[in-house]
């Protein structure tokens, strides 16, 4: 893979794990308090997600010093799991997303009824954001 060094601006004082991890953990702990399908949970994901998308688009997060190269033909291998997942999700959704034909999120719902699992889910969601915006 071809990688190139690029100039990297100094990170902002809050852009480091010692700050972001506790902040994410606190947000995840709060988010986990709100059961799914409630107004509070909707407002929380809307507010937190909105702020984070704004941060991501505003370029406030430090970009990596080494960028991966351009498009590589072997990336098409990723279409295989994506297609299997997509076909299953589409089929179960079109069949009504019932107990007999569950979508992925319907299967996840019983797990996410537990507060601690929701908090872990929120933390993973926020961590995924951090990984994404550094790309």
């Amino acid at each position, binding site marked *: *893979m071809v990688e190139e060094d690029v100039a990297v601006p100094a990170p902002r004082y809050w852009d480091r794990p010692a700050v972001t991890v506790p902040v994410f953990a606190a947000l995840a702990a709060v*988010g986990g308090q*709100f059961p*799914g*399908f*409630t107004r509070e*949970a*909707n407002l*929380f*994901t*809307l507010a937190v*997600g*909105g702020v*984070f*998308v704004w941060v*991501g*688009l505003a370029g406030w997060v430090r970009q990596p010093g080494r*960028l*991966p190269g*351009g*498009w*590589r033909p*072997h*990336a098409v*291998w*990723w279409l*295989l*799991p994506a297609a*299997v*997942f997509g076909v*299953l999700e589409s089929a*179960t959704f079109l069949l009504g997303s019932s*107990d*007999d*034909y*569950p979508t*992925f*999120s319907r*299967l*996840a719902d019983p797990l*996410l009824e537990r507060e601690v699992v*929701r908090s872990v*889910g*929120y933390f993973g*969601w926020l961590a*995924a*954001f951090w*990984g*994404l*915006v550094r*790309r």
Partner: protein
Amino acid sequence: MSLTRAVAIGGFLFAMGLFVAVEWAARREGSRVPTLGDVCGYVMRYEVGRVPVGRIVLLVFWWWIGWHFLAR
């Protein structure tokens, strides 16, 4: 558990196994398959004119995933 439910669960587990397998293959020494992070990085840098289309699409998708699983 009905047969169709078992097939759906097995299928989703199979799909997740495929994601793990492709990522594992990508991380092998000398692999020509990019990691999922590399693919995301490529999409994130896709722009049309000066509009960061790839960045917007992936961040909105990220938000939707969180809302869909954790709130809706």
